[in-house]
């Protein structure tokens, strides 16, 4: 078999973006996808922030079958039997260009793969890549289903577990400290009911994040996104945090407890569960990234550790698309020069460093240190809920002044040495 220009491992957003660009540049590209179609192994929470990627793939962003554009952000802070909710919306979010969209990956990725094929790349589903081919100490293709597929360059876009990056020696084994488990349920519901329940116009969407007792003090939180005719509801749970928790908690039970909460149950009432999915998320930020390239190979998307938890915003898909496009650019230049050495492919890292993807990863380098503070999931939600309880409660006894109540709650939860340390840590983000 003649050498292909590029073989892409994984038909997710990073892999498809890379293939799209390379095919558009006239390169011979094959995408190998282990699922029965692109998207069938992929899970998002999910929302995609499109502004940073418009310049990378304008026509894809413009025509993509996204679900709803988000016009309302809801933040719910939960105590065991109480909650406080804050809503934020801005009029400009209702008009184009929209900032973010809810998305379901099975639909989006499959559509995207059709666009990639229209550009002339081959997307082959049902193919698991088992190994890398090596030549003179460089990656020189892949092995899939017992068949050798030689290529000048391999783009590993095989997701958060990236076996390819591991086989190429680019990353160390995965550690629970660096990962969170996300569980998601998708509920089918009439679009009119979504718009009615959330007070949305046609095609408009809402995003609701939940923090506090959702995870019983463990790192993580809950989410809910409105799709066109379904709701995506789920939890994120830090692996190390769950391992250390006593008594031990089963993650699927935590998910059940979440959807049973009245703050969540009211949205999904009468809706029918359609799918139960799970995926891992890198929580290590820039510190958890593997080496991004070696001779004959580039790593993109989740495989490269591109995901970022910024507290109330969680991002990944736009990094996948940007890194896929930049990997294609670096691969294309290397093919022009006829040089796929490690040195030549180093262009990829330089391009990434100039892009929003690496800049954001660097800016939020310390966000995990801030977010993995257990007080964020216990003390602070309790403070907010106790304060509101004091303010709203009228009993048979005379009511103390509001300032006094606020001072009492703040003294109990915030104005102490731990609170001061939290303040200092917060400045890192």
């Amino acid at each position, binding site marked *: 078999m003649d050498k292909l220009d590029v073989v892409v491992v994984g038909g997710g957003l990073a892999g498809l973006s890379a293939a799209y660009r390379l095919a558009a540049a006239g390169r011979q590209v094959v995408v190998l996808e282990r*699922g029965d179609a692109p998207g069938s192994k992929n899970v998002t929470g999910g929302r995609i922030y499109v502004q940073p990627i418009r310049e990378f793939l304008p026509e894809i962003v413009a025509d993509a079958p996204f679900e709803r554009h988000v016009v309302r952000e809801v933040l719910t802070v939960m105590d065991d039997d109480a909650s406080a909710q804050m809503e934020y919306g801005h009029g400009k979010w209702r008009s184009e260009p929209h900032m973010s969209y809810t998305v379901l990956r099975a639909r989006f990725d499959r559509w995207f793969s059709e666009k990639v094929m229209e550009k002339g790349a081959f997307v082959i589903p049902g193919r698991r890549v088992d190994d890398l081919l090596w030549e003179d100490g460089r990656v020189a293709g892949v092995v899939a289903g017992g068949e050798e597929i030689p290529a000048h360059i391999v783009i590993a876009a095989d997701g958060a577990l990236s076996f390819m990056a591991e086989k190429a020696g680019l990353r160390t084994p995965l550690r629970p400290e660096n990962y969170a488990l*996300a569980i998601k349920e998708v509920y089918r519901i009439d679009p009119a009911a979504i718009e009615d329940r959330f007070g949305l116009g046609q095609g408009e969407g809402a995003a609701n994040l939940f923090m506090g007792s959702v995870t019983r003090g463990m790192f993580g939180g809950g989410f809910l996104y409105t799709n066109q005719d379904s709701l995506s509801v789920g939890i994120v749970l830090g692996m190390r945090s769950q*391992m250390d928790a006593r008594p031990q908690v089963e993650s699927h039970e935590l998910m059940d407890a979440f959807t049973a909460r009245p703050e969540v149950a009211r949205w999904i009432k009468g809706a029918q569960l359609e799918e139960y999915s*799970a995926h891992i998320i890198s929580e290590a930020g820039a510190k958890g990234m593997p080496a991004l390239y070696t001779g004959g190979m580039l790593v993109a998307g989740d495989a490269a550790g591109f995901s970022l938890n910024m507290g109330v915003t969680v991002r990944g898909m736009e990094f996948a698309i940007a890194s896929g496009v930049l990997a294609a650019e670096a691969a294309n230049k290397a093919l022009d020069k006829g040089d796929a050495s490690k040195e030549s492919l180093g262009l990829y890292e330089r391009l990434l460093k100039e892009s929003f993807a690496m800049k954001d990863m660097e800016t939020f380098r310390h966000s995990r240190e801030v977010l993995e503070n257990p007080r964020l999931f216990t003390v602070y939600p309790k403070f907010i809920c106790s304060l509101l309880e004091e303010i709203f409660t009228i009993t048979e006894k005379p009511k103390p002044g509001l300032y006094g109540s606020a001072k009492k709650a703040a003294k109990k939860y915030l104005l102490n040495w731990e609170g001061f340390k939290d303040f200092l840590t917060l400045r890192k983000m």
Partner: protein
Amino acid sequence: MKIEEKLALNAMKNDRESHIRLDQKICAACKERYCVYACPGHLYSLNEETNEMVVEYAGCLECGTCKIVCVYNAVSWEYPKGEFGVQYRCG
């Protein structure tokens, strides 16, 4: 809804061979059984008769959590062969 019923909603194409293998010697010495608690599909359990760990690979959501939380490296986990395993229709 029970977790088994939830898993039954998913589109699955199951291989006859498991893509997850456990090292029972290591499992026997493990006290925490992180896999039992972490697996979102609740697929890990202890067979009380044989005293061996069992994993119902057929319901696997392919998240890889068990591979990561098993810090004793008893879990050998690979992706199911091409076209096998869970096929998400929403994702």
